[in-house]
């Protein structure tokens, strides 16, 4: 048995694995040979057995495992006994989540490092080389499989070619089944955005149509109506349609910003509004109301800069000039914010004399 010489690993030859003289490593090496692997280096990282260095590594690994266990116990203890319910103020419960994180983190890290140290420091150092087989010239196998596939194709194809009835029948039979699979998905999901007489896309909660033909009041988020004197000069207020659920997400396109301008600004605003077909006569006194839903991506354009009369959308920083029909003056928005025609009813509360005359919210293809 010349193959037992370990000093000649370059040319290993097959061995009989049932040979009782072989060590276990020899059998393993035969397996490696069959997997085309050459074990170039395989040596202990320590000099001799039970060396001082080895004992030290073993001690450290053991210590890490013990730390892991202790930290895991600590995690369980904190999880079970630490007060965890939320209470206002600074309480011990505030530390519940951090304690869980620290103990679990330490435990898992310790396990991780223990395993890593075991693999890197304790196991024998090894270098193996395995052969790759990609990029080899075409073999018989490629040819055989290719021909088989073409043959199978021919088998099916010739059958169909010679039997035209089959061809038509297959086409007629399978195509509708494919459509059947798609139909419920498409048919169930699809929604026509234009189906109603007053499509939701183009109407808001301020439309009198949905309020029995009556003009809709402007309300706060708790539903109370607003009088002109409720908004101080230079001030602004977010208002909602005075219909049931008007302030909820049911009417996500309806939030409106009611602004009480200073009189010189109001004059300029009115001049610009009256010069515009859609906004003419929409102001009431020094008050103006614009849709709060940004025409860019639909965020509420909620940051009102009193000094410059600009409205800023915090999502993508579109800026609108209040005094100039809320024209966009910076950022990605193209379209101005629609103005809500304001009026005051006989009881002295703000109403919308009609819905917005322009489409509210982000832009789309078929917007009129």
């Amino acid at each position, binding site marked *: 048995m010349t193959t037992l010489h370990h000093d000649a690993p370059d040319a290993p030859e097959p061995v009989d694995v049932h040979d009782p003289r072989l060590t276990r490593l020899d059998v393993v090496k035969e*397996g490696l040979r*069959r997997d085309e692997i050459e074990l170039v280096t395989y040596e202990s990282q320590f000099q001799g057995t039970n060396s*001082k260095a080895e004992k*030290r590594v073993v001690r450290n690994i053991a210590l890490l495992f013990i730390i892991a266990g202790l930290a895991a116990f600590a995690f369980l203890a904190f999880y079970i006994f630490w007060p965890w*319910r939320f209470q206002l103020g600074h309480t011990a419960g505030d530390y519940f*989540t951090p304690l*869980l*994180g*620290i103990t*679990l*983190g330490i*435990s*898992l*890290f310790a396990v*991780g*490092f223990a*395993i*890593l140290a075991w*693999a890197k420091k304790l196991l024998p150092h*090894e*270098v*193996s*080389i*395995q*052969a*790759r087989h*990609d*990029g080899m010239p075409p073999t018989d196998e490629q040819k055989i499989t290719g021909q088989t596939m073409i043959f199978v194709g021919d088998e099916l194809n010739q059958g169909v070619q010679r039997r035209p009835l089959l061809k038509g029948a297959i086409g007629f039979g399978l195509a509708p089944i494919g459509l059947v699979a798609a139909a419920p998905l498409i048919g169930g*999901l*699809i*929604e026509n*955005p234009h189906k109603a007489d007053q499509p*939701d*896309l183009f109407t808001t909660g301020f439309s009198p149509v949905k309020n029995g033909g009556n003009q809709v009041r402007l309300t706060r988020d708790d539903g109370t109506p607003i009088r002109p004197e409720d908004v101080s000069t230079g001030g602004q207020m977010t208002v*909602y349609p005075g219909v049931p659920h008007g302030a909820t*997400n049911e*009417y996500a*396109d309806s*939030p409106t910003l009611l602004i009480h301008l200073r009189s010189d600004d109001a004059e300029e605003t009115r001049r610009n509004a009256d010069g515009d077909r859609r906004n003419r006569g929409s102001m009431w006194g020094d008050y103006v109301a614009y849709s709060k839903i940004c025409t*860019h*991506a*639909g*965020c*509420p354009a*909620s940051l009102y800069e009193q000094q410059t009369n600009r409205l*800023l959308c*915090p*999502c*993508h*920083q579109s800026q609108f000039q209040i005094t100039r029909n809320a024209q966009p003056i*910076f*950022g*990605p928005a*193209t*379209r101005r914010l629609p103005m809500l025609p304001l009026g005051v009813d006989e009881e002295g509360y703000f109403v919308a004399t009609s819905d917005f005359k322009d489409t509210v919210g*982000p*832009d*789309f*293809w*078929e917007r009129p």
Partner: protein
Amino acid sequence: MKRRTGKADLQQAPVTFAKGVDERFQASTPLRALLNKVFPDHWSFLLGEIALFSFIILLLTGVFLTLFFDPSMTETAYEGAYPALRGTEMSQAYASSLHLSFEVRGGLFMRQMHHWAALLFMASIVVHMLRIFFTGAYRKPRETNWVIGMALFLLGFLAGFTGYSLPDDGLSGTGLRIASAIMLSIPVVGTWVSASIFGGEFPGHLIIGRFYIAHVLLIPGGLLALISVHLGLVFKQKHTQWPGPMRTNTNVVGERMFPRYALKQGGFFMAVFGTVALLAGLFQINPIWLFGPYRAAEVSSASQPDWYVMFMDGLVRLMPNWQIYIGDYSIPPLFWPAVVGLGFFTTAPMAWPWLEARKTGDKRIHNLLERPRDNPERVGIGSMAVTFFLWATISGANDVIADKFHISLNAMTWAGRIGLIVLPALAYFIAVRVCLGLQQHDREVLAHGVETGIIRRLPNGQFMEVHQPLGPVDDHGHPLPIEYGGWVVPKKMNRVGALAPAVKGFFFPVEKPSEAPVSPGMPPISGDTREEITSGRK
């Protein structure tokens, strides 16, 4: 006939069992091949593992969260443990998220683990893909895995977006609002797409339920399938390796999968898991109770999406307000960055391996990685992409930067717009120059040797630095030229073994230090002639 003994042969039991298994499944040959499979090792090969481990953590923590989360948009008045929101109208989804955070023992910890693991998942995918790109690991035969990797990023992006939309808090509702606006911006079918997905006008009552099933079943199913194929291909095609001693294009140099490699993977998984646990415990993430329920009229500044969505948000912010009018119809500017941009940046790079192969005419199989410096043009293009991505991401937070550094918001936007065009070109130029410089330095060391830091004065008074040749020298002592091997060239004396090996032990040496390599020309001073260094005082 065999004599029946009372006690079973315990020693023989596993062998019998294994034999039984093999007789039924013929598993021994493939199992041996698996045990013996050789893996190459390098720290950069572990970046993808972080993504894999994060995904496992996501599955584990995600299942826990589903036990408590109620994906319903039914309005309810909150009566839970968090006093600031008591009595507030909110959706069941938001209420159950609050319940999960405050009234489930350890629920907040699990939620934060899930979110941190998601951020880590996306981050490691990106860093892993940078490694793949800059080392040319995507070249033939691994183009398919590159494509799958891009698809995994896109799926992860969608998983993240659907996930952070679920709690239905103020921030996620704003994200949904923008998503609806993005759908609306698609020409011709935009309103139909939005109406179909939201089941009517935004927000409707269906979206959370639909996102929920997408987030917990459809997208993870896709991720799981793609990850399986991804790993299967890594297995089948064998991992790439760096060039180096013994390494060729037709072999793999490393260690067998079992036990050492598998153990190291296990340890690394625990370390990743531990990192996520520490992050989740110590660093608050997505405190939904501070945002309140979603209200269409409420948002504040510093509304940022998760980091991997920020590049898109940045592009949306930087896009000029160019609307295209076609008769009575129009295409809003939002369409270009959010639909075309996202679609292009996540799918166009899929074609890169074939584009590069076509340009270079290189149809060979590459199992050896390329050092980035050896392919300056690829590094240049990669740097362009990275710069573009980072600049767009930074622009996604331009309002926060403007606020913290007292910069005009408009100036930030303009800097973003100009930078997006100028900086990638600049990055290309710098990266190529850096690569060429590094190449040149490698060649210099190969030609002249390592700088020793020793200055020699010649008899004529001239000073010169002594170089340590890396290989044999000719008769005049000049180094013979050495071919560049595509791998690290030692540039410091300790890299060529000039320093003695470190002594093991913290407080005292645990073993005798091994002998330092001895240069035949410079025999070391023997122990006897060394003198103890003293302070000089008696």
